C-alpha cells in the first residue's frame, strides 16, 4: 500500500468549555478514498478546519508530503494542494464557469490585462477532464447543482490539488448526478488524488470509499477498511451503542379516513388523488422534482391550489394560507429547515411556539410566559432535545435537534394530520431513530402522518401504505407489505402500477 500523502496525528482542539477534538487521527493516501463519519457534532467539520488552517490546533502533528507543517490560513492549504468542496457551494452564479474557477487569480498579462483566451482554454481542459459537457463561457447559474459541484472540483484541480475533501457532496444531488460524481471520484482516484469523503449516507460510503475513519464526541474511534465492515458495525462505531432496529414499527389498526385529496392541481402538481387514515403513516415516495413537496405545500395552503378538493373528516377545506391549514388541523414540517422551517436567529423556545402562540397568549395578545416555558420544557424533555436551555439560539443546535424542534413546533398546533417532508435529512443516525420513534408515538395517538422521503428504505420501513409520485401525479399505491424498492422505483420513473389493496 502506498504511503499516506497527508497524516493528522493526535489532533487536539478546545473551545471555551468544550474539547472539540481529542487525539484525532486521519490519514489520506493517494488513489484512495477515506470516509470521515460521525454524528453531527462529532468534530468532523472542526477537524477539516484545523486541517485547512481556519483553526489552529492545540496539539498534534500534521504531516503533508513527508513534512510536518502548519497552514496559517485556508489560502495556504489551498495553494499547497489541499482542496475542499463545501456543502454550500462558494460560487458566483452570474459569472462564467471559467471566471469562477480562476476567481481572484485570473491569468493576466504584465499590464494587468486578463488573458481571456488562455483562461477559457485552461478551464475547458479541466471541464473535459471531468467529463462536463459545458463550454467554460457558460454562465454558472445555468448549471444544475450537480454540475456546479463539478465546477468546484474543477477549481480544486486547477490548484493542482493532491488532496480533495468533499463535505456531504451528495446532499443536494439527484441520483443521476450522484452517479456522475462517483464516476469523477473514480477518475480522481485513478489519477492518484487522495480523497476525504464526509457523508451521513452509509450506502455511499460502502459504494465509493476504501477506508473509513470514525469520530465520536471529538474522539478518534477507529480507522477500518470498508471491506471489513457492515452497516450495523459502522453505526455502532458512530453512536457507541447498538441500534437494534433501524426502523421501529408499531402496528395500529387504521380507522376513519381523515384527509382526502381529490384531483388536486397546483404548480408542479397535475391531478393528485389520495387519502390518509387516522393512526396511519402514509409514505410518499418519488424522485426530486416529482411534485411531492409542491403537493404538500398546496395541502398546507403555502402555495395556491388551482383545482381540486381537500376534505378533512368529510368537511371541504378552503385553504388560502398556512394559517387556514393550521386552524383546520394540518401541520407541515418543511424539508428545508434553514430556508423556511426555522428562524435560526431565535431561541429554541421562540421557534417552538411560533406557530401556536395564540395558545400561549391572551385574546388581546399578551404572552403568558409561564405556560409557554412549561410547554417548551415538556417538549424538550419528551423529545429528548439536546440543548443547554430553551433560550439557546437554535442555529447552534445540531441538525437532529433542530429537526426535533421543527416537529415539536408542528405538534404545538395540535394537528390531526402531520405532514413530514424529509424529516431525517441531514440528521445523524442516532437522532434518526429517535425521530422514527416519535413518529410512531403520534401514530399510536391516532394522528394521520404523511411521510415524504427520498430515502426508499425509510419509506418502506416506516409506512403502512405508500404512494409514489411522478411528474405531479400519483403513479402507484402499495400496502407496505406488498412494496419493495424495485416497485417504488418503477412508479417513480413513470410506470403506472397499482396493486390491489
Amino acid at each position, binding site marked *: 500500500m502506498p504511503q499516506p500523502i497527508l497524516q493528522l496525528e493526535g489532533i487536539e482542539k478546545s473551545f471555551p468549555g468544550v474539547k472539540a477534538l481529542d487525539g484525532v487521527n486521519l490519514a489520506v493516501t493517494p488513489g484512495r478514498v477515506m470516509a470521515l463519519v460521525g454524528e453531527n457534532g462529532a468534530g468532523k467539520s472542526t477537524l477539516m478546519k484545523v486541517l485547512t488552517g481556519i483553526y489552529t490546533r492545540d496539539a498534534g502533528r500534521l504531516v503533508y508530503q513527508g513534512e510536518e507543517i502548519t497552514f496559517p490560513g485556508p489560502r495556504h492549504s489551498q495553494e499547497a494542494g489541499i482542496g475542499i468542496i463545501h456543502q454550500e457551494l462558494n460560487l458566483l452564479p452570474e459569472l462564467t464557469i471559467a471566471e469562477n474557477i480562476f476567481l481572484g487569480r485570473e491569468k493576466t498579462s504584465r499590464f494587468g490585462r486578463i488573458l481571456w483566451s488562455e483562461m477559457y482554454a485552461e478551464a475547458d481542459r479541466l471541464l473535459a477532464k471531468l467529463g462536463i459537457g459545458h463550454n467554460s463561457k457558460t454562465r454558472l447559474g445555468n448549471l444544475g447543482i450537480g454540475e456546479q459541484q463539478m465546477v468546484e472540483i474543477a477549481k480544486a484541480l486547477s490548484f493542482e490539488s493532491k488532496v480533495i475533501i468533499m463535505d456531504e457532496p451528495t446532499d443536494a444531488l439527484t441520483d443521476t448526478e450522484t452517479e456522475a460524481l462517483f464516476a469523477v471520484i473514480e477518475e480522481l482516484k485513478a489519477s492518484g488524488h487522495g480523497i476525504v469523503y464526509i457523508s451521513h449516507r452509509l450506502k455511499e460510503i460502502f459504494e465509493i470509499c476504501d477506508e473509513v475513519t470514525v469520530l465520536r464526541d471529538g474522539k478518534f474511534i477507529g480507522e477500518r477498511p470498508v471491506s471489513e465492515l457492515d452497516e450495523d458495525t459502522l453505526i455502532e462505531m458512530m453512536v457507541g451503542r447498538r441500534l437494534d432496529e433501524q426502523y421501529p414499527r408499531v402496528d395500529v389498526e387504521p380507522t376513519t379516513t381523515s384527509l382526502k385529496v381529490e384531483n388536486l392541481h397546483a404548480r408542479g402538481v397535475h391531478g393528485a388523488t389520495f387519502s390518509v387514515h387516522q393512526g396511519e403513516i402514509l409514505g410518499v415516495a418519488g424522485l426530486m422534482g416529482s411534485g411531492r413537496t409542491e403537493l404538500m405545500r398546496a395541502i398546507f395552503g403555502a402555495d395556491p391550489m388551482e383545482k381540486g378538493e381537500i376534505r378533512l373528516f368529510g368537511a371541504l377545506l378552503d385553504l388560502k394560507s398556512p394559517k387556514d391549514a393550521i386552524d383546520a388541523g394540518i401541520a407541515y414540517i418543511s424539508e428545508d429547515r434553514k*430556508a423556511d422551517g426555522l*428562524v435560526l436567529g*431565535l431561541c429554541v423556545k*421562540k421557534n417552538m411556539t411560533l406557530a401556536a402562540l395564540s395558545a400561549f397568549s391572551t385574546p388581546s395578545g399578551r404572552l403568558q410566559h409561564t405556560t409557554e416555558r412549561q410547554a417548551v420544557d415538556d417538549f424538550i424533555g419528551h423529545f429528548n432535545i439536546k440543548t443547554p436551555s430553551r433560550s439557546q439560539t437554535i442555529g447552534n443546535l445540531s441538525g437532529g435537534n433542530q429537526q426535533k424542534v421543527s416537529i415539536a413546533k408542528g405538534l404545538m398546533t395540535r394537528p390531526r394530520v402531520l405532514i413530514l417532508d424529509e424529516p431525517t435529512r441531514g440528521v445523524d443516525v442516532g437522532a434518526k431513530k429517535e425521530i422514527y420513534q416519535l413518529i410512531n408515538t403520534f401514530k399510536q395517538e391516532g394522528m394521520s402522518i404523511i411521510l415524504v422521503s427520498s430515502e426508499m428504505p425509510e419509506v418502506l420501513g416506516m409506512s403502512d401504505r405508500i404512494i409514489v409520485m411522478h411528474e405531479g401525479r400519483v403513479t402507484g399505491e402499495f400496502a407496505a407489505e406488498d412494496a419493495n424498492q424495485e416497485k417504488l422505483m418503477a412508479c417513480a420513473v413513470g410506470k403506472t402500477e397499482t396493486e390491489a389493496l
Partner: protein
Amino acid sequence: MTPSDKVIQSVRRPSLKDRLIEQKSLIALLVMIVIVSLLNPHFFTLANILNILRQTAVNAIIAVGMTLVILTAGIDLSVGSILAFAGAVGAGLIAREIPLAVSVPAALAVGTAMGAASGIIIAKGRVQAFIATLVAMTLIRGLTLVYTDGRPISTGFTDTADAFAFIGTGYLLGIPFPVWLMVITFGAAWYLLNHTRLGRYIYALGGNEEATRLSGINVDRIKITVYAICGFLSALAGLIITSRLSSAQPTAGAGYELDAIAAVVLGGTSLMGGKGSIMGTLVGALIIGFLNNALNLLDVSSYYQMIAKAVVILLAVLVDTRSKT
C-alpha cells in the same frame, strides 16, 4: 445534578451574556458622560441633563418606530417627511382653534395612515422597503410644501395654541413633557416586543419571513402594522417640534431618518432584521443626544461636530462587529 438544576443553571448563562453585550454601549455612554463632566462643569447638572433628554426625545421617539421596522428587516426613510406633514396638519388645525382633543389625534392619524400606506405598498405590492419609503419621503415632503405653500404655519396666539404649546414646552413633576412621552413610548415598545404576540412575530418575520409565513402568521399584516406604528411615532415627534416652535416648518425633520437609523444601529440592532432590543435603541439615542450637547459645551465648531459624530458612530459600530465575531 438533576435535570431541573441543569435547566435552571443553563438558562441564566445566555441572558448574562446578552446583558453584557447590552451594557457595552451603555458603558460607552457612561464613560462619555464622565469624561465630559470632567472637562466641563456645566455638563453634569440637572438642568443640562433634562435639556439633553428633552432634545433627545424627538429622535428617540422616531428611533423606536425605526427599531420596529428594522427588526422586520425593513427600513423607513419617510419618517422626517411624515414628521413635517403631520406637524403642518397639526399646526393648521390648531391655528383654526380646533380643540386639542380633535387636532392632536387627527395629526397622529394622518401620520399613521401614511406609514400604513407605505406598509401596504411594501407588503402587498412587494416593493423593497428602501424604494417604497424613498418614494414616500419625496412624495410626502412634496405634499407638505404644497400644503404649507412653502411657508411656516404658525399655531397662532389663541388659548388652543397655548394649550398645544404644553406638548413641546411643558413640564410635569419637574420633567419636560417630551421626556415623559419618550419614556412612555419606550415602555410601550418594550412591552410590545417582549410580552405580546405581535412582538414575537416581529422578530420572527425579520429572522426568516418564509418560515414565519409557514407558521401560519399573516406577515403582510405585521409589516403594515410596524410601518403604521412608525408613522404614528413620526407624527408624534412632529407635534412635539411644532408645539415647541409654535409653528410648523415645511422643511422640518429633513435628515432625521439618518439620526434615527444611527440610534438603532448604535443600539446593536441588526439591519438584516430579527435581532436587537428597544433598550439598545434608547442607549443609542442617548449617545447621539449627549454627544451633540457635549460637542456644543466643549465649543467644537458645528462643522467639526458632524465629523466627530460620524467618527463616534463608526467606532461604536466597529467595536460592536468585532465583539460579535
